[in-house]
Each structure stands twice: as C-alpha cells, then as structure tokens.
C-alpha cells in the first residue's frame, strides 16, 4: 500500500477536488426551504404546546392562589377585625385604670346575649360598645387611682388558681375578652403566644370555654394546644392539625425532554404518608406510579455507543417518541405557608428515586431509512437514587372532618439522565389530592385567649 501523498493518483484527486466548478442551483434551495418551512411549522406547534403547558401551569397557580385568597376573611370582616384589634390594644392600655367588671360582664353577656351572634354586624356593635367602655375608662383615668386593678380582680381565688398570673397575662386576658365581644378573630395566634397564654388558669379557661360554648364557639387546637374561639364569631376556625396523614393523588403528567415538544399527558397515581413534626413543617414519603409520554429530537437522546450506527444505518432519527412506566419514591419536606380555617396553602421540595419499570421508544426519520430499526423497548428494571428534584405548591380544603381535598402543581427537575437513552426528563403537572388524617397532633385542652400586644 503506497504511503499517503506519494501516490500521484491521490495528488491528482486532491488537486481537482480543491478546484470545484459548481454553480448554484435554485432548485436545491427550494427543496431546503420546504424542509425549513416544515421544521418551522413543527416548532410552531411545539411552541403552542409549550404555551399551553405554561398557560395550564399559570392557571393551576392562579387557582391555588385564588382558592387561598377566597379562604381569607372578607374585607368587611378584616376591617372589623382590625378595628377590634385596635380596640383590644386600647383596652390593654387602660385595663389598670378601668377595672372592667369582667366576671359580671361575662355573666351579663351570658344572660342577655346568650345567642351571641356570630355575624360581623353584631360584632361591629359589640366593638363599638367595647370602645365606648374604654373611652369612659380613659376619662376616669385620673379618678381611678384608688380603684382595684383588674389584676386583683382576676386573681380572686375562685377564678384564678395560678399564683404567677402576672399583670401582662391579665391584660391579655381582658384584651381577649373585649376583643371577643367585638367578635374578632384570633387567627394570628402563633406558637409562642399560645405557649405563654396557656399559663391562664384552668378556672379561667373554664370560664372562657363556658363563654365560648354559649357563643357557638369552636374549640380546636394549635401547636398541640386547644384553641377556643370564645367569640363565636364563626370567622375563625382552627381545624385540628394533622400529625399523621395519608395522601392519595392523581395527576395528568406532562413530560418533556428539552421543552421543545409535548405530547398528550401521561398519568400519575400516588400514595404518600405525611408526618407533621411541627404544625408548619412536615415530612412525607411514599410511592407514585407514573406513565410518562414524551417526544424529543433524536439528538436529545444519548443511547449507548454506536447504537445509531449499528441499528439505524448511522442516521439519528429526526424525533423519538418515548414512553415509560416509572415507580417514583419521593421524600419531601413541606411547609404550611398559611393555615386559615378549612384551608391550607403549602409549599414543598424534595428528591425522588426512580425505578424504571419499562420503557419504549419509536424512531421517526424525516426520510425513508430502509433496514433501520423502528424503535426499542425494554422491560428491564433499573433504579436511580434521588436523581429528580421535586418542587410543589398546594392548596388543601377540609371537606369533612379528617378529609382534605386539594390541588398541587408540581415540577420535577432531573439532575441526571434516566433510562436507556440517558434522558433528562422534566415533568410538570397538577396533582388532585385527597388527604385522610389518621392522627391529629397531641391535644392539650387549655384555653388560649389571644395573643397580647407585642
């Protein structure tokens, strides 16, 4: 075999090939232009699909946001609440000067207003009454130096057994009751205030509970502590916080390889166990079985070395339709952003392990490709640990005691390729969820009047 370059034949062909004498053919361009147009049309379809997905995601987020917004008190109710809170603050300022006849008032209220109305209009009247009372108290501020303080009144042995009930607690207590007359909400009670407020004596708690019962109140719990809506406003509802719950989910699952193409949605069914370590924080784990469908450019797939060469005459398919059944094992951390009445708004993040149960691919060539394989499929199971990041946001509504229904948009981001073709498969969707609360958080039947002024 002659050495490279020593052959005159080689030199000749090299020389000739370097002097091409080729004129442009418009016909060739027209053929290419037709293909470019076709590709553009496909891209346009893909773009529309992408817009549809983006639209559906936006709708899901808006839906969740809307449901959350709807779960908030109305403007009127909020306004009344604000007014009452202000009143409460004022009340706390004057409480030392005006020994409000707490027990008497309670009794009077109980007798005269045994059907304490839960409506905001009545609350407003009550609020004004309370405000008048406070104004009068302010006027008599200078005259009241010799009067007993409310602290003393509230520390009567028949009402208060707790010896260390301090003045501040008394203030808060009275504030709560004044605010209660005004039918305000106590939905801003947080863990710290609750823990402080539970120092209220059992006798006081009984009193409040009695009042609450009369006023058609709701006795619930927060941070493991029973919260008594003593105001009977009906505006505040504190459902039991779940400790352990089961979550069933179903979702139309949109999967894509590179956000270029979308196909009909697959499906996803899941069963998760959720454990609340705190009221706001919870962990969940479970199993989700998903049927995923996707389309990608042939270049997006990375099959084993020489696969295309050995099986498709070296031609990489224009597009590849893929589908797979995946068993997903997610481990999630969730945070309850808001918990208002029957509604909860939560966000979550975590990672999933994927068990690929089976997969199938169909190749699409833009030109006939005789002898090439048309696809590939496998039932071989493969597992990848924590290779997908999950991000979710959800809204849940209590439909029955112990049952919550919700919607939870999600995004699954791969951190490494899965399957035979080492595919980075993104998934978006919105799960419809049904939560069954197996176990509520530990009850502490202590009355929580309200949070005091900070």
């Amino acid at each position, binding site marked *: 075999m002659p050495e490279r370059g020593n052959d005159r034949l080689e030199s*000749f*062909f090299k020389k000739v090939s370097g002097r091409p004498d080729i004129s442009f053919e418009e016909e060739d361009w027209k053929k290419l232009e037709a293909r470019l147009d076709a*590709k553009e049309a496909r891209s346009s379809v893909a773009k529309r699909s992408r817009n549809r997905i983006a639209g559906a995601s936006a709708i899901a987020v808006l839906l969740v946001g809307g449901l959350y917004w709807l779960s908030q008190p109305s403007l009127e109710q909020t306004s009344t609440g604000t007014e009452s809170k202000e009143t409460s603050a004022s009340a706390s300022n004057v409480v030392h000067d005006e020994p409000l006849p707490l027990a008497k008032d309670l009794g009077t209220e109980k007798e005269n207003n045994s059907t304490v109305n839960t409506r905001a209009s009545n609350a407003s009247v009550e609020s004004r009454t309370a405000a008048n009372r406070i104004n009068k108290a302010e006027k008599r501020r200078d005259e009241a130096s010799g009067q007993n303080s409310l602290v003393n009144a509230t520390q009567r042995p028949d009402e208060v057994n707790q010896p260390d009930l301090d003045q501040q607690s008394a203030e808060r207590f009275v504030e709560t009751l004044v605010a209660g007359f005004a039918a305000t909400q106590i939905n801003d009670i947080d863990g710290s205030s609750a823990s402080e407020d539970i120092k209220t004596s059992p006798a006081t708690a009984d009193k409040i509970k009695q009042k609450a019962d009369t006023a058609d109140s709701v006795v619930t719990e927060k941070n493991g502590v029973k919260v008594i809506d003593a105001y009977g406003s009906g505006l505040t509802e504190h459902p039991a916080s779940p400790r352990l719950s089961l979550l069933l989910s179903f979702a139309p699952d949109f999967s894509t390889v590179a956000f270029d193409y979308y196909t009909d949605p697959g499906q996803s069914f899941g069963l998760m166990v959720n454990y609340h370590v705190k009221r706001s924080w919870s962990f969940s784990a479970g199993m989700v079985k998903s049927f995923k469908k996707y389309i990608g450019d042939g270049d997006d797939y990375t099959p084993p070395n020489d696969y295309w060469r050995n099986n498709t005459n*070296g*031609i990489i398919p224009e597009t590849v339709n893929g589908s797979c059944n995946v068993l997903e094992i997610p481990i999630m951390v969730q945070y309850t952003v808001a918990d208002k009445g029957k509604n909860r708004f939560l966000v979550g993040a975590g990672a999933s392990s994927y068990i690929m149960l089976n997969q199938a691919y169909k190749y699409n060539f833009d030109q006939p490709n005789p002898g090439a394989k048309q696809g590939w499929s496998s039932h071989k199971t493969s597992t990848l640990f924590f290779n997908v990041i999950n991000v979710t946001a959800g809204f849940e509504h209590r439909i029955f005691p112990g049952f919550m229904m919700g919607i939870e948009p999600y995004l699954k981001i791969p951190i490494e390729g899965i399957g035979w073709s080492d595919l980075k498969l993104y998934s978006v969707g919105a799960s419809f969820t049904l939560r069954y609360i197996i176990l509520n958080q530990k009850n502490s039947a202590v009355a929580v009047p309200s949070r005091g002024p900070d």
Partner: protein
Amino acid sequence: LEDFTKTLLEGCLRGHRESQKLLYKEFYGYGMSISLRYASNRDEASEILNDAFMKIFSNLKKFDITRPFKPWLRKIFVNTAIDHYHKKQREIQVEDMDVAKNESDTEKILSGISYQEVIGLLQKLPPAYRTVFNLYVIEGYTHEEIANLLNVAVGTSKSNLFKAKEQLKILLSDFFEKDYARTR
C-alpha cells in the same frame, strides 16, 4: 470569521430566511464539492448537501461564532455524507469488480479532464470504496479513524482504499480511451 459570514450567521441564528439563503448560496459550491465526492449521483449529493445545511441551521447556536466557520461546516458535511453512506450501505449491493491487472500510466490522465468528469469517475466507485477514498485521500483521516467512522475493520478500510484506487485507474483509462476514440 469574515464580517459578511458573521453577519449571515447572526441572521441565521435569528431564523432570518434571507440570511439562510445567502449563507446557503455562499457555501453551496464548497458543500456540493464535498457532497458530490461521496454521492453516487448529483441527486444524492443534493440530498447530502441539504441534510448538512439542515444540521447547520439547527445546530448553529452550538457554534462559537468567533471561530472559523469553514472547518465546522466541512466536518458537518463529511459526517452527513458518512450518515448517507451507512444509509445506502444496506440498499446497494456492492459488486466486486475485477481489479485491473495492468497499471495504466497515470501521468497522462492528470491533465485534460474537467472537475465534473473527475467527480463523475468518483461516483462510479462503489460507495464503500468511494467513501474510504474520500476520507483517506481528501479529508486526511487515518485508517483507524475511518474504521471507527464507518464501523469496519482497519483492514477493510485499507483494502477498500486499494480497490478504490485500482478501480479509478481503470475508469480513468477507459475515459481516456473513449476520449481518444472520440477525438480521432
């Protein structure tokens, strides 16, 4: 990169059709010269050319616009031609042709033949021979590289090159004999 080519590439990146056409026209001759050497006929060369340009337009965003464009273009054309070779490999039965026993004098054939005629001769070679010949002689690949690209043994690559050359000698000889007869 020339300013004109750079401007065209920027237009192509934006999907501007006129820029695509101008780029196509600009590199049509170059691309076709590569395609013709690998193809069996002009139609196939046109197919390779357009496939390569489709790849170029689709993957232009991967190309570093500050680097020379022509080597990248050439690589895509050669790879596309090899893709076509694989595609055709199953369609065409390669017929063994008798290797000429007598070496003709190559000196006399090095002049008096046009580019189109040379390409015509190359296209008469079986695809396996032609592809190896092009990759080895024109593109400068080694037999190991060719073997890897075409998924054949190194020995097959060497053998195909040898056969390609022998066959080209015969074809050239025939060409000049006919030419001589015509002009006589």
